[in-house]
């Protein structure tokens, strides 16, 4: 079986930029109702990535080897890379396909039955989480591009760390939203009391914070490799 992935097969940076030039117009000039083929592809592929990361075995992290599932990582990542509305559509697609019955939710679950479960709040919050994270993240990335262009000729590590921090904060905003809605879901559907729901929720916060950090680090690398993802006018 041939290698399926690896280094991009673009012939050169210049050719890669040329291809993106035509179709990834600046977000400020495009009408939000049009989804071109590249948007469609990004939305579908990231919905697939979310499925794959949600199903990947939990990764042991840190000295204690605490297992972290990657579903929320995927949501943060999709937001930070695709931006507000594309991430919203990508995660909505993920949730809809999962609700259709394909078992792509964490734990190999799927189907409308999930709406009866206690995690329904988090699940339904995901598209909005991704949208919020994406909206904030892309704004930061665009500012970063403009600043780099105007300022230095070489990107100093300090500036990059700045972007990483901003992306992390975007992730935290999304985290807050998803946990608030998750708590509400646990109360309404799982029948938990407010105290019980909050306590159950707190268990997941440290893990989600780590995932926000990881997503920010990954997204910084991705935006460096693909400068046009955020639609910045360079």
């Amino acid at each position: 079986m041939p290698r399926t992935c690896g280094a991009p097969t673009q012939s050169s940076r210049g050719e890669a930029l040329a291809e993106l030039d035509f179709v990834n117009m600046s977000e400020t000039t495009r009408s939000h109702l049009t989804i071109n083929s590249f948007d469609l592809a990004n939305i579908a592929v990231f919905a697939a990535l979310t499925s794959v990361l949600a199903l990947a075995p939990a990764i042991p992290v840190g000295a204690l080897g605490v297992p972290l599932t990657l579903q929320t990582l995927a949501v943060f990542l999709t937001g930070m890379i695709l931006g507000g509305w594309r991430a919203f559509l990508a995660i909505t697609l993920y949730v809809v396909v999962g609700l259709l019955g394909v078992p792509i939710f964490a734990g190999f679950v799927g189907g409308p039955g999930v709406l009866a479960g206690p995690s329904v709040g988090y699940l339904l919050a995901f598209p909005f989480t991704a949208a919020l994270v994406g909206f904030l993240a892309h704004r930061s990335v665009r500012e970063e591009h403009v600043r780099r262009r105007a300022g230095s000729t070489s990107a100093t590590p300090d500036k990059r760390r700045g972007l990483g921090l901003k992306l992390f904060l975007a992730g935290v905003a999304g985290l807050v939203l998803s946990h608030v809605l998750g708590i509400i879901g646990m109360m309404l559907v799982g029948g938990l009391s407010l105290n019980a729901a909050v306590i159950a929720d707190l268990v997941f916060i440290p893990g989600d914070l780590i995932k926000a950090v990881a997503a920010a680090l990954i997204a910084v690398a991705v935006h460096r490799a693909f400068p046009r993802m955020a639609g910045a006018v360079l």
Partner: protein
Amino acid sequence: MRRKVRRDDLLGTYVPGRSLLHRCPLALKATLLLGLCITVMVIRDWQFSLAVLSLTALSSAVCGLGLRRWAASLRPLLFLVILLGGYHLIFNGPARAASIVLSLLAVVSLSRLLISTTPLPRLIDGLVWLCTPLSWCGVNTERIGLAVSLMIRSVPWLFGCLGELRDAATARTIRANPVRLVTPATIATVNYAHHTGEALAARGLD
């Protein structure tokens, strides 16, 4: 312990067959099964949910899916059932615990019946039909079907990509640090999405 993910578990939820449920038209089947789901959730009575759950087990056996598959589809919920059931048992008593747990199992089982007896392309057509109201708002529902197909088709590739990178990392005896693993996978994913977009455009599907 790492659980190996089988690709056909994900996409091959459809089990071919010629049973009554298989041959039943999607619209009727979906209305019936989802209607039952809603009834279970609204009534939330443990006896009713138990009856429905038993019915799904019976249907599974009769339609050629087998009891083992029926049980396997519910196994992922075990942990959740224990947690949730335990909580309600302590705070709200056995009746409430039973109704919450059994209704959850019944609903999951019903939806599993639906997708096990319907091939994926048919399901996608059903989804596109469901989105017809959206088309009145100017949304191209055909593209929704295309998006679902694109997503399904991308999943095996992404599994392969992640698996390869994990193997490569293991070969170089790097511990599977999530960031180090997922970064090249994500870059490859963005690249893959870009190529997919090109192919879509080249085939005039934009």
